[in-house]
């Protein structure tokens, strides 16, 4: 280039401008893929980051106007495909990639946006089972948030009509796809909550592409459903379609028809439940009455015939008495036997017997003694008579018989052996061999006198 042949001196700005021109001319419409790093999100709304692969990196900027169209949130580490142009940031002398369009590599942008919002809301607890409201036991007024021209409304109304569901339907017509649809849906949910007089909300639309269903993946719809005091059934698309609205709703119906079925079913179940309860109520009372009546009857029967009761008692008493006497008899027999034995033993040791025995011994002894004494007496008697005979031979009486006498003083009985023993006048007793006499002394003669 001629620029370099001559010694032309350029200012830095000029050079930089030249470089920028070259780059912008040659890299005006480029696709590039790489991993995001050094992501910066200043308040200005522009996005700054670096795209890199193992061998190189490039500074990137996505200006606010382009960034606004991003459905998903940029994060470090993300693999991206970017479309844009290469330019130079003069002030720093750096070349950079001006990103005009971004999409995640591998998955579509919408898909990624869905995953990201899902994660965010899940973290906030919008999907928590504990936050879900119970569907009313008996929804009588249904609010429907959908398009009046769509298949969803038609399906719902058809089900309700065919099943003869006694429910009122209040429709809040909204657009269900395209720009602003999400806001309309969210607004209708809020309107119903302000209006108040419905029992349950069905929010949904028929099937479609991911783009068609996109409104139901918007955060504003999710938050409106989450904040609804009226329980919300989501009914978006077909069974396979799963939206953020489905996750945050109190109940998810796979299709709009299914949502209507749920409402009808709860109504039918309620009919059955009520019938069942009524039947149980009547049965319970019936049973109660029957049991009361039975008790009454049996009580009255007992009242009518007290003899039965008394009879039973009598029988019982008899039985007891019988058992008692039998027991007593046994006891008595034992006692009696014991007594007899004792008596026998007692009789054997009776004192009369002892006395008898003593008496016998006494008699025997007596007899022995008597014979002994008798023999002894006989002996004595013999000896005595011998002695008497001998004595007789020497008796004074014999002397007296032979003619001698015995003279005794009458006053003192003394035998007078000497004349000096007496005085004349004394009374004397004289004993002869046969008989006696009393005499008075006339005169005494002493032995000398005689001489």
């Amino acid at each position, binding site marked *: 280039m001629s620029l370099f042949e001559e010694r032309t001196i350029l200012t830095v700005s000029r050079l930089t401008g030249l470089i920028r021109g070259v780059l912008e001319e040659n890299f005006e419409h480029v696709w590039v893929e790489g991993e995001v790093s050094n992501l910066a999100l200043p308040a200005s709304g522009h996005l700054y980051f670096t795209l890199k692969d193992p061998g190189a990196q490039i500074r990137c900027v996505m200006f606010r106007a382009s960034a606004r169209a991003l459905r998903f949130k940029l994060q470090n580490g993300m693999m991206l495909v970017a479309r844009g142009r290469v330019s130079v940031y003069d002030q720093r002398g750096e070349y950079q990639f001006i990103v005009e369009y971004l999409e995640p590599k591998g998955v579509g942008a919408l898909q990624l946006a869905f995953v990201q919002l899902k994660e965010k809301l899940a973290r906030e607890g919008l999907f928590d089972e504990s936050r879900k409201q119970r569907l009313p036991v*008996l929804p009588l007024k249904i609010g429907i948030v959908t398009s009046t021209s769509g298949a969803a409304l038609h399906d719902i109304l058809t089900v309700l009509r065919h099943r003869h569901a*006694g*429910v*009122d*339907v209040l429709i809040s017509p909204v657009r269900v796809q395209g720009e602003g649809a999400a806001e309309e849906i969210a607004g209708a949910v809020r*309107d119903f909550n302000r*209006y108040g007089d419905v029992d349950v909300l069905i929010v949904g639309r028929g099937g479609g592409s991911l783009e068609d269903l996109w409104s139901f993946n918007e955060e504003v719809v999710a938050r409106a459903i989450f904040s609804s005091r009226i329980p919300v059934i989501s009914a978006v698309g077909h069974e396979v379609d799963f939206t953020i609205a489905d996750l945050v709703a109190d109940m998810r119906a796979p299709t709009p028809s299914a949502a209507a079925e749920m409402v009808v079913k709860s109504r039918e179940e309620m009919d059955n439940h009520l019938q069942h309860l*009524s039947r149980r*109520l009547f049965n*319970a009372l019936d049973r109660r009455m029957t049991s009361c009546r039975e008790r009454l009857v049996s009580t009255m029967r007992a009242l009518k015939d007290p003899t039965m009761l008394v009879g039973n008692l009598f029988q019982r008493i008899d039985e007891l008495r019988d058992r008692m006497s039998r027991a007593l008899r046994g006891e008595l027999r034992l006692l009696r036997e014991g007594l007899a034995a004792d008596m026998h033993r007692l009789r054997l040791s009776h004192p009369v017997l002892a006395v008898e025995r003593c008496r016998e011994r006494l008699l025997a002894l007596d007899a022995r003694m008597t014979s002994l004494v008798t023999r002894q007496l006989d002996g004595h008697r013999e000896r005595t008579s011998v002695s008497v005979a001998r004595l007789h031979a020497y008796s004074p009486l014999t002397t007296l018989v032979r003619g001698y006498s015995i003279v005794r003083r009458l006053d003192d009985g003394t035998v007078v052996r000497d004349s000096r023993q007496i005085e004349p006048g004394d009374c004397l007793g004289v004993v002869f061999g046969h008989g006696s006499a009393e005499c008075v002394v006339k005169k005494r003669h002493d032995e000398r006198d005689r001489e």
Partner: protein
Amino acid sequence: MAAEKFETMLRKLEDAVERLESGDLSLEDSLKIFEEGVRCANFCVKKLDEAEKKVEVLLKQRDGTFQKKEFSPDNER
């Protein structure tokens, strides 16, 4: 909300049934509870029959109030 009173009455009915079935009540109480149960059941059945089966469209007015209009499938966008 329409369902609120219904649910209250339904719960009362269920309670009545359970108490009556438990069977440890005096006859007088049983009758009282039975009557209450029947009253609740009648209310619930009436509520079920009451639904008007209307289909209407909720329209928001400029002043923020709501207006209901009968729905015909082709009068909306």
